[in-house]
């Protein structure tokens, strides 16, 4: 998942694309699992996992990995 986000760094990656990258399946049924995994990723890379600065949520669409310019 991080690989997929990094490959599209600076751009939004849809939740569907993340799902397909991680489980090779469609989103339906994975929404909560995906959220848990994003949370885990944040715990690993963010200083403050509850106030992310790098792995940002784009509501309803997906996530965006922002590397500081």
């Amino acid at each position: 998942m991080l690989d997929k986000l990094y490959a599209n760094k600076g751009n939004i990656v849809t939740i569907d694309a993340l799902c397909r990258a991680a489980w090779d399946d469609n989103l339906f049924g994975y929404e909560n699992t995906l959220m848990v995994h994003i949370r885990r990723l944040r715990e690993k890379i963010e200083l403050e996992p509850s106030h992310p600065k790098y792995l940002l949520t784009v509501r309803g669409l997906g996530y965006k990995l922002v590397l500081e310019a």
Partner: protein
Amino acid sequence: MKGIMKIILRNVLSAGGIAVLLLITNLIILISWATYSSKDQTPKYSISNISQGLKREGTNFTLSDEASSLITDKFQWAMLLSDDGKVIWSKNLPEDVPLSYTSSDIASFSKWFLNDYPVKEWKHENGLFVLGDSKNSTWRYDFEATETSMYNAPKWLLSGLIINFLIAILLAFLFGIRFFLSLRTVIKGVEDMAEKKPIFLNIKGSFKDLANNINITSKELLRQQKLIEKRATARNNWITSVSHDIRTPLSMIMGYSSSLEDNKNFSEEERKQFSIIRSQSEKIKQLVNDLNLTVKLEYEMQPLNIQSFYISELVRKVVVDHLNNLCDDKYTLQLSVSDEVQSYMLNGDMRLFERALNNIIGNSIKHNENGCDIFIEMKKKTEGCIIEIKDNGTGFKDDVLENLNSSNEMPTSTSHGLGLFIVKQIISVHGGTIHFENLENGSSIVLYINN
């Protein structure tokens, strides 16, 4: 088979109806005739009164005034026969009436006519009172029947009626079958004609003219069909080859202008001009592609690559692609997907759908140079789903809006609305409908998709 039952049933019912109607009419005529003629007859039956009005006084007879006037008004003449058959009194006696009678004469005229005069007899205290009418005024029929035949008469009448009824229904049945048989070929022919098959009906009888007309119509339809197909193919081929011919040199222009744009030997100003050449060429290319696609969709020559896909996933992808490519903060894109529609799968051409959504969003961005907020909402309906795309921009021009909502014709002004026209075509080849609307500020496009 359903057709034949219907036709026959209808025939039989109408025959039954006609039979009942005839019966009732006949009954009414009979009753009215009977009442009318009985009204005519009643005063004639006063023979006993007339007879009593004749009194003997010595050797003379006197007739009361009432009886006298009755004889002249209602009858013609009267006479009194003595027991030995002689006329002993008479009034208005015609000349051709004899003056003496044998008993066989009396028996004969009491049953039939007296010298063609219809007569009535009544027993008088002095003999037989005979009342005569003028010739040919009364029709007489001597009726005699055995007791058993009168007793059986109702049965015969009833069975006669039933037989009449059955014959009517049987005839209706046979006519129905005949009608259906001759109609069946015609029906088959018309069905074939609707399926654009060539037909030739050979029918004799009452449907001959109809069959001939159908044959002619079918021929004409096929001829026009071929003509239309030929024209459509020609137009499609022409546009395909022209757009191909345009695209090839255009690609070269774009390629060279792109490399010139990156060439550091040119000044900043010149490189900007190359950039404009490239971006405008891209627009031409896009236009040619649109033209090609819209013609193919119009003539149903675009092979659809039908597959099952999640529409919500596609919409998200399109929105994210736009967000990722927008380098301007003037535009915002928001998506709201209801939970039920997340799992909604659509059968259709994913690429075409993506194209449609791109066209809608791209249109909003292109026509609102000062920026706008685009809001996309997806909802589930009992059958299918709804995608509503709203923006708070300038909205559609009135004529464009009217053209998009009403006609299925290609837009007349090609610079406006071709992109949205393609959207409309794509949605309609997927069996959906589309509605364009101007909001208080901005516009709204609603797609109804159900399959």
